[in-house]
């Protein structure tokens, strides 16, 4: 896998490529594919199969009467979808967007679509299940598991929890 600053900013294409080529590999080791991204300098990840596409940050129209974690809505090829500020959702302070900021567009389980604002998308990780620990230590609310990448841990976020924003 390439270093974050190089190929990592590639969008869905690297996902598509990784996913397509995976079909030719052996299935003897169960590999999970995770989209890795950065948030406040730390590595996070979410399951690749939930990602529809990754787009650059564009102007977000604020929306009234929604929890603060919902930044607002964007128009994307004829659809209008809400964007959740993942920093705020995970209890971090918001940050000014940079060139590396991306909106990860997710398929929602109920058919709708949601955008997640992240600091940067870095790469697609392919990890054997054994590298993914059962749960994060302590009382983690939105982190489902920790995965080891080299000598650091990547936090796998629990999307269902993250998208329950009503009670935030």
């Amino acid at each position, binding site marked *: 896998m390439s270093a974050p600053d190089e*190929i990592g*900013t590639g969008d869905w294409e690297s996902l598509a490529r990784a996913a397509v080529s995976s079909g030719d590999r052996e299935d003897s080791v169960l590999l999970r594919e995770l989209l890795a991204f950065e948030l406040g300098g730390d590595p996070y990840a979410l399951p690749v199969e939930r990602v529809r596409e990754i787009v650059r940050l564009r102007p977000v129209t604020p929306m009234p009467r929604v929890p603060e974690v919902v930044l607002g809505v964007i128009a994307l090829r004829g659809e209008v979808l809400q964007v959740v500020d993942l920093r705020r959702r995970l209890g971090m302070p918001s940050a000014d967007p940079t060139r590396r900021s991306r909106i990860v567009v997710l398929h929602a389980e109920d058919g709708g679509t949601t955008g997640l604002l992240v600091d940067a998308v870095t790469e697609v990780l392919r990890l054997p299940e054994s590298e993914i620990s059962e749960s994060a230590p302590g009382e983690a609310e939105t982190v489902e598991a920790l995965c080891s990448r080299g000598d650091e841990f990547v936090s796998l976020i629990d999307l269902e929890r993250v998208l329950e924003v009503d009670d935030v």
Partner: protein
Amino acid sequence: MQRVLIVEDSATMRALLASTLEGLGDGVEIHEVESGFEALRRMPREAFDLIVTDINMPDINGLELVSFAKTSDVYREIPLIIISTEGSERDREKGLELGADAYLVKPFDPDRLVEIARELLKKRGEED
């Protein structure tokens, strides 16, 4: 900020090339056009540091575009990558003879494209 121009008539290939070249990182701006003519129109108005072109296109072909750039005092120094389907070895030879800096075959290896593009952009940056 360096600027890359993609010349390709297929929307899908264009999207793939663009997203692959996004891998060059933040210092590079990717521009896309869908025909050789459009490239000819944009080149005098905007300074590009790298042109990536397809060969088979409806108006002028990629070889003609290379020939134009490499015979021009203004554009001669812009590095050029030709991307085409394996088809013809002779097209490849001609492209390189005309002065293209690289010739990649579809389906191209994205990492290789990024590597070549980065190399050419780096050289170009050092010249300026």
